[in-house]
């Protein structure tokens, strides 16, 4: 029984962390129409940033600043935002393909950098991070449950923040630019600036998710920032329904459950010689889920509720 509860807590923690990243992507893609092909770069920047800022000094590694945990987490988000600012500044004025390619490129470059640079721990990654409040709550289920509550609070906070944001005039502006850039421009709005703001905000949220992820495992390595994670996060948003925050969270839990279940089933029931190919089989399956969704139900399971105008909402 304890085992099942432990596992459920573990599963829910990871799914909640990923939900935060999916919410960040939803702000970029669902609400603003920005294609971020390198979610892992921002997720990874947050993760590496948090560990570098928050861990004790280690030989040969960058950082070891030993900042208080919340400050380190915040620092990770800032680093993710800076990466987004650089990429966004260069690409958001151009046609949309450039952002897709440049973000994809920044993810490749990021993984390449942390894998090769010794100061980032290289292929071994960064270990030796002391999880906050460990000495108070120990390392068992109690600690994990508490951490889950912490993640859940941040997920709810992010959710409420984004709901408020998209209901605000700024959110309306985002949708206006997504739907018709020229029209928004004619009303004196600056699409490239607004897009940059939304892109950075979304990336900062991804950075938060990355920081939590690294805290949860107390470890980060290049293996955690492979392009497949970008793909999974996208799958969660597309299946859930782009533009709908509730759908984004539902999609995350659904896809993450399907992913872990298929991994478990393949490792349990598939013959040994097939096990080597478990990853490939899962990738093909998730690829079909994506392409199928885009072909037959592009709005996702929980479509965006479009409010045509304020008066329509009140039912007049």
């Amino acid at each position, binding site marked *: 029984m304890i085992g099942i509860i432990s596992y459920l807590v573990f599963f829910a923690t990871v799914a909640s962390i990923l939900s935060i990243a999916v919410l960040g992507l939803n702000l970029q*893609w669902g609400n603003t*129409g920005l*294609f971020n*092909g390198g979610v892992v770069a921002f997720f990874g920047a947050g993760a590496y940033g948090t560990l570098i800022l928050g861990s004790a000094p280690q030989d040969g590694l960058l950082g070891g600043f030993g900042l208080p945990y919340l400050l380190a987490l915040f620092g990770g988000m800032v680093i993710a935002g800076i990466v987004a600012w650089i990429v966004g500044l*260069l*690409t958001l*004025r*151009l*046609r*949309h*393909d*450039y952002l*897709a*390619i*440049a973000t*994809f*490129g*920044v993810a*490749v*470059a990021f993984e*390449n*950098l942390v*894998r*090769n640079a010794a100061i980032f721990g290289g292929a071994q990654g960064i270990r030796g991070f002391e999880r906050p409040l460990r000495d108070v709550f120990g390392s068992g289920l109690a600690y994990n449950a508490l951490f889950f509550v912490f993640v859940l609070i941040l997920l709810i906070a992010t959710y409420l923040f984004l709901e408020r944001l998209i209901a605000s005039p700024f959110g309306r502006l985002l949708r206006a630019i997504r739907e018709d*850039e020229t029209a928004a421009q004619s009303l004196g709005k600056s699409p490239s600036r607004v897009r940059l703001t939304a892109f950075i905000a979304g990336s900062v949220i991804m950075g938060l998710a990355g920081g939590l992820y690294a805290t949860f495992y107390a470890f980060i390595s290049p293996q955690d920032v492979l*392009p497949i994670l970008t*793909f999974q996060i*996208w799958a969660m948003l*597309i299946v859930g329904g782009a533009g709908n925050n509730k759908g984004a969270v539902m999609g995350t839990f659904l896809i993450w459950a399907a992913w872990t279940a298929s991994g478990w089933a393949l490792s349990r029931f598939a013959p040994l010689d097939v096990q*080597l*190919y478990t*990853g*490939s*089989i899962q*990738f*093909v399956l*998730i*690829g*079909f889920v*994506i*392409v199928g969704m*885009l*072909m037959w139900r*592009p709005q996702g399971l929980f479509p965006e509720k479009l409010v045509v105008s304020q008066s329509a909402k009140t039912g007049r």
Partner: protein
Amino acid sequence: MIQNIVDGFLVGSILSLGAIGLTMAMHMLRFANFSHAELLSVGAYAALVFDGLFSALFPVISTAIGPLSLTWALTLATILSMGITGLTAIAIDKLVFKRVRAKGGELSMVFASFGVAMIIRNILGLIFGLDPVLYSQDIVFAILVSADPLLLVKPDQVFTLIAAVIIMFILHLVLSRTTFGYSLRAVAENPTLAQVSGINLNRMIVLIWLIGGGLAAAAGVFYGLTNQINPVLGRDLVLPIFAATIVGGIGSIYGAVLGGFLVGLAANLALVILPSGYSPAVPFLIILAVLLIRPHGLFGEERA
């Protein structure tokens, strides 16, 4: 240094072949096709299959040509593979991209292409295994062209460069001398006006996929001949090929050719100062540099 320049040209010719098809499809269908590089893998593996088939059926043609590791069987297989890969590209468009195009916006296509790339790459891995394979088990020694500065070149590499240049020259003749070439350029310039002039847009799209796929297959075989074939070939080449199209300017075929060589050269020259582990990140730096200095590339036009 000299070695890096020569290697750069060799890699560049492969990137150019890949970038031509990508830039055409990106310009015409207005989406960044992340699955284009997988066509190189499809071509490389298709040639591998037919090479094996031809060598088994007609052992006579399975002997190497001159100093190359290339056989007549592989040559035939490559030509067949170009056709098959072209048809694969058309099939993917019919099955996926066309439907997504009808349903959603251009950006849904970008993501659909991510999905297609994922499916193709992993199915190839499931069929052919995850380990790298080679067309020929014979060891072909590199020829020492000069000892100081050190310059080693494999005969296969010289062949690859020449063959790629010939293929691109043929494409140039087609584009500049045939009615088809004129129609293609007309569609690229202004699709609506081209259609008014009686050009069938859908037919042009099919032909673009056919040409793009064929060139990608040739590039894939050349890559396999000078390196090795593995299922993640597309993943490794997608960023350099995108860099080549951005350097050349999206939509410009000649730009793509030049961009391929420039990226190949820059990526190899970067290894003079950078440790080789960083080479996958170099195309990204090139993209950033181009976006900073000349956002629309060498020959690209400003288009929203």
